[in-house]
Each structure stands twice: as C-alpha cells, then as structure tokens.
C-alpha cells in the first residue's frame, strides 16, 4: 500500500474543495498518514466472496417510492432568507466561466 503523501493531499484538497493553512497542512498530513496506516489493517481480513453491504436494513427495504403528486414546496422567500446573495429571485454568485 502506497504511503499517503503530500501530492495525495493536494489532489484531495482540489476534489473536496478544502483549503488548508500552512500550519494545518503539515499536521493534517501527519494525521492522515497515521489514520490511513490504521485503516489499512482491513487488508489482512479475508473478504473473498463477501458481498458489499450497500444497505444495512435486514428487513425488506426496497422499492420505497412516492406517488407522482405535488407536495409541500419551499417558498422562494424562505430559500432566499438564508442566501448569502440574491438578485431577481435567483441566488447570486460571482461570474462563472460559461459551460
């Protein structure tokens, strides 16, 4: 198992949009290295032919659906009450490079 390193950390930061102050970075890297070493213990457990546990409920829990009927809405007012910035009923953000 590859050792968890700085490059890993920077890649992860980009993916997770997490910025770190320089002091935090060093500490965090050490922390993550220790944690990754710890969780790596699972490698020694034999899981051949064992299925992933995607859903923990042991009772029949499938096909939970709802009818195609309009229900309770969130009012625009309530949405915008919590919005950092808004304009014309929309949430406002800095300009975005068009896609």
């Amino acid at each position, binding site marked *: 198992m590859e050792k968890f390193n700085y490059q890993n950390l920077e890649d992860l930061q980009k993916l997770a949009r997490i910025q770190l102050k320089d002091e*935090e970075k060093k500490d965090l890297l050490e922390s993550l290295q220790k944690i990754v070493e*710890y969780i790596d213990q*699972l490698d020694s457990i034999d899981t051949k032919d*064992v299925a992933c546990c995607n859903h*923990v409920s042991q009772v029949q829990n499938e096909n939970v659906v709802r009818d195609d009927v309009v229900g309770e809405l969130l009012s625009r007012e309530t949405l915008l009450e919590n*919005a950092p910035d808004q304009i014309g009923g929309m949430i406002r953000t800095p*300009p975005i490079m068009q896609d």
Partner: protein
Amino acid sequence: MDLYKLSAYELRNLFLDKKVKATEITEYFLKRIEKNNKKLGAFLTVLSERAMQKAKELDQKNAENKPMGRLAGVPIAIKDNTHIEKEITTCASQFLTNYKAPFSATAVKLLEEQDAILVGKTNLDEFAMGSSNENSSFYPSYNPWNLDCTPGGSSGGSASAVASRISLIATGSDTGGSIRQPSAFCGVVGFKPTYGRVSRYGLVAFGSSLDQIGPIATNVKDIGLTMEVLGKHCPHDAMSLEFPAESYIENLREDLSEITVGVPWHFLESLNKEAHDNFVQSIETMKSLGANIIDVNLDILKSSIAVYYILATAEASTNLARFDGIRYGVRSKDAKNLEEVYDLSRDQGFGYEVKKRILLGTYVLSSGFQEAFYKKAQKVRTLVIQSFDAAFSNCDCICMPTAPITSFKLGTFQDPIGMYLQDIFTISANLAGLPAISVPSGFDKDNKPFGLQFLGPQLHDAPVVSYAHAYEQATKFSSKIPPLFDKEF
C-alpha cells in the same frame, strides 16, 4: 416541589393532575438552564419565548380538559443538528451560525405533537464529528459530574443537560456512539434505535447509513415513553422502516429470567482493570436477575473502527459537500470568483476535525483507492453483520461496556487515533443497524460514571429497552444526581 428530581413520566402526570402548570414547569427549567448553562456549555440556544408560548397553550388546553399528548409539559432539548422550523440550526459550526431551518425534523414534529416543550438546542461536536464535544466551534460542553471533564460526544450538550437535570429529556444523534457514549460519561440513559426506526428527515446528515436520532433521559422508562413518540414510519425518509410502532412502557421488565445474554469476553480483553471490574459486576447483577450468560465471538469488531472511519467519512465527505457558500451559510467576503467562494467559505466555516474527515472520506472514495478502502470496508461491514447474526442465534441480547474509559479531561487526546478508539464498543451497533442502549452501571474511584450497553437484533428495540429497565431497577445508578446540580437553584 423538586421538579428536577422527577422523571418525565412523573412530571407529565403531575401536570395532567393539575398539580403544576406548564408555565411553572417551563419557568423552572428555564431558570435552571440560565443558572447553569455557563458552567455546562450544554445549550447553544435557549428557546425561552417559544417554550413559554407552548406552555401557555398547554395550560389552556389542560384547563379545558382536552386530551393531552404523551409528553405534555415535559421539557425536551434538541441536539443542534436537528431542525426546529424557523429556529437556527448551527451544527456547532461557524458555517451555519445564521442558518434558519426551513422545516422541522419529523422527530421534532412528533415531539411537539405530543405536547413536549422544546427548551433549546444543545451543543455538539461540529457536524456530530467527535467524541468529547471539544470540536464544537462555539465552546465546549462539560460533564456535570466533573466540570474539568468532557460530557462525551458528539451529543455532549444533550447528555450534560439531562445529567444536570436542566432538561429532563434531550434528543441526540448517534452515528458511531454519539448518544450512548456521552450518556455513559454523564450517568444517564441513552438509546440508539434500529437503523430506520426513527426518521432522519431534518437531521443534518453525517453518515447516512449509520445515523439515528434517539432519546437521552434520566431513566429507562422515559426512554421508552419518548421512543413510543419517535419510533414511527416517515414518508420523507426512504430508509424509514414501515413497521408498526413498538410498545415500550407495557413491556418493561423487572428481571431477566429466561433471557440469554451474550458477552464477547475475548473482544473485551483489553479493558482496564476498573472498567473490567465494573463490567463483571454488572454481569453478576444480571445473573442475579435470572439471566443466562454465554460467551459469543465478536472478534471481528476489532476492525470496526477502521470500517467506521472509512464508511462514515466517505458518506460525510459527500453529505458536507452542499456546504459550499452558494445557497446558505457563510460565504467568504473575500471570494472574488467561484473557486474562491467554495474554498474560502469552506475554510472559514469548517473546523479542523471536519476538514480532516472530509479529506479522509474523499480519499477512500477516490479513484485508485476505492477498491482497497471503501469497498473493502463495505465487505467487512457484511462480516460484522454476519457475526452479530451468528451471535444472536444463541442469545437475546449482547452486553458490553459502553466505553473503554470514563470521562476524561478536556485536551487529553491529541493524536487522532486515540480519540477514535474511544468508540470501540459503540461503533458496531451502527455498522449493523442494531438497537443499543447505554444505562449507568456504577462509578469509578473518582466518582465518574460507567455505562453498560445492551444490544439487540434489528427491530428488537422494545426488548433491548426492557432488559435495560430490569438492570436499572436492580441497581438504580441512573437516579444518582451530580452533587453540583442536586439543588433547585
């Protein structure tokens, strides 16, 4: 009337019998909160106006002899990662200091429908990530038994509030032990239901396949009472179980005759002497109540922390992605473009532990590592479930200590693994979706509480609570009140 010494069940009866008014009850507990919260750091928000308003309505209703709810007149605190509509939900994070909940959690709605009086929002580790409440970005919470020590976490504020009797009941959330461990540390009773038993709608998600809302109370009967209100199917939560509500109060046992209790002795080998002795004592008590004690093999649980910190952080890394400064919460004033809105807002809003877990969670899901970590952990989770299934084929419930140690001083754990290891006995119930309760089991030499855990198969919530009741009746540890708070005002 020393109202704080009463159980919720007793208080409600007093209220219904018109021996005390709801407004009196509310003023009383609000006063207790006001006097003690600074010491305890239990509450982040006190909802005095709302509570008094509800109390007035209840008094009116009661005066007209209208039918009253099952929790009528009972003060209840809500962990601040659970929504009360129009009130702030902070999750103890700088990210959400001004976030007004747009809807009430189903659990909160059910409590209000049954006439509970919601007194405030309690402190927690930020986004429920922690085992000591030290990760709250506002202030820590303290243990009523020893104010230098933690109340545990992440539902530290709730456990502290109940133990000090400034609220009689509180809700918590439990992802890896966050209801049970603080309950044990604070000498109160805390219950994590079967996964899906209580709706998660309105609970700010941490580990979606692990989270459950549950009650913390001063005694087991109150746990049962609250669960009868909370344990209902919810159409807004697709993982909510569609099973008839269980009856708890009717089924509370006084003994454990004909009950087989499984104990994973091998797994418990590493317990320190004091904890070990306390646990052995509890087992003797259960024997005297008629229980048949057998050994069960749960050695796989040694890996449960590794499994948990992979799965919970993976789920959390995606659950917390929505906190991006766009729609709600903090948005950094320095952000000049979209990237900066994300990066700076999350930097400003998230504490260190939260950032760490998000990065870890992103790592175990990332391309090249998902197979070795996330998928592997999912498979070991299956093994954990299978182990429990095998054990339960021979016993009605499993007993373990709730925590390996009693409450510790703030600042004790500096290395990451050390703190995580505190969850060793609680995590497995979340991995397997099992109902699990922690009930006080004694005190250590420093008069800090121990907790004992009962676990049952999925859907055996009422039986688990009933076993705990029998133990509680025989030992009465939960009725002990921390000396500092054992006076009215």
